[in-house]
């Protein structure tokens, strides 16, 4: 089509005008396809994971990780193979830097879920390396993802924050889109909650990989 319109254009006169019109139509179609492609891309990016179950309103006493009385607690649930979680961890790193002025530093945890039947090297990869390199973060393995399920998390990158009194302050994601770094409502809500201000929201959507296989999730 492009070649034909060019041949018509080279023909001169009326052919040239027709060729130009065809060429401009090709360019317009291409521009629409490009804009449509970008819209498709953003639709995917802005589609959150499966709706989480309700998180415990207070930190479970028999939880896999202990909560220290008088200290807030932040935990991020991750899928060790999820590439999107890189953005969540990078945002966690930035978020923690905003805790510096807090009178009491929160306990920080990142869990790596291991689905039933996963291989021995399932947790190896960028998520483990990235999480381990964040100052003050304790990384632990969640066999079978049972602890994540207990917290109501269904999507990698889910963050839960409990206050010094053990009450749930925040449950949700800290990225504004899937695998997308940058400011987010979740981060601002967590900072406000920990500094004692009224947060804009207590929950945000979580963008990332599903923690459980479709068949398991049902």
């Amino acid at each position, binding site marked *: 089509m492009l070649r034909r319109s060019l041949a018509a254009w080279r023909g001169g006169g009326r052919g040239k005008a027709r060729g130009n019109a065809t060429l401009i139509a090709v*360019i317009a179609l291409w521009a629409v396809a*490009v804009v449509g492609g*970008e819209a498709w*891309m953003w639709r995917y990016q802005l589609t959150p994971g499966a709706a989480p179950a309700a998180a415990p309103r207070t930190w479970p006493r028999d939880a896999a990780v202990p909560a220290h009385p008088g200290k807030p607690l932040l935990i991020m649930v991750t899928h060790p193979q999820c*590439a999107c979680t890189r953005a969540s961890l990078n945002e966690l790193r930035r978020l923690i830097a905003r805790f510096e002025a807090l009178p009491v530093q929160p306990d920080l945890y990142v869990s790596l879920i291991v689905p039933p039947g996963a291989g021995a090297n399932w947790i190896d990869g960028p998520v483990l390396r990235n999480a381990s390199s964040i100052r003050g973060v304790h990384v632990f393995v969640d066999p079978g993802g049972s602890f994540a399920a207990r917290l109501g998390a269904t999507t990698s990158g889910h963050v839960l924050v409990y206050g010094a009194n053990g009450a749930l302050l925040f449950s949700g994601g800290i990225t504004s889109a899937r695998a997308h770094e940058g400011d987010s*409502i979740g981060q601002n809500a967590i900072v406000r909650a920990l500094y004692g201000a009224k947060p804009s929201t207590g929950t945000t959507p979580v963008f990332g990989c599903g923690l459980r296989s479709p068949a398991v999730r049902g």
Partner: protein
Amino acid sequence: MNLDPASLSALADRIVQKTESTYADFVQRWVLRAERMFLWLMVAQWLFGIFIAVTVSPYAWEGKTRHVSNHVWAAVVLGGLLSALPIALIILRPGWVGTRHVIAFSQVMWSALLIHLTGGRIETHFHVFGSLAFLAFYRDWKVLVTATVTVAADHFLRGLFIPESVYGVADASIWRFAEHAGWVVFEVAVLAYGIWLSLNELRRIAENVAQVEAFAEREALTAAPMPVTMPAMA
């Protein structure tokens, strides 16, 4: 040698015509040179986009189930689409005014795609400013206008409908849009000034070439020695 008024007028006309044709030739050569650069850039960006997608996020996971990530499809299909028309026009319609505007639009959309593929990294936003500098190679300020309008429209529409995708928050003020657009306009203003200076310089060179050639032609015709005075460079 003294020239009669008619010969002098003919010589002046010849110099003006020669200046215009030499200037147009210089500009066109720059345009073709810029397009050759963009030909390789379009191919390189496509390969780079695929490389980033395949190395950074090859798969999306659901528990133990994995499938090829949408990032990979975006890099291959959308990236291929973004580069395909500019490459076709560079090969089939080199130097056409529409070719450079298609390239400007494509280049800005490439910035959006690369920002997406690298997970919204702040550093990738510099691709926008690098692209504007590359587009300035055309020495055509109108190309920069196309790129600026594309950036502004992209930010404005996304800010209107999906503000989280640009600013990270749903309630970003209109001033965030103005701030982003302001930096782009700042760079474009500097580049446009540079283009204006460079085109003036190019025209002066074309004038010098035209004068030298016109006098040389005249000298050859009369076969008499004639003083040639080069105009002083401003």
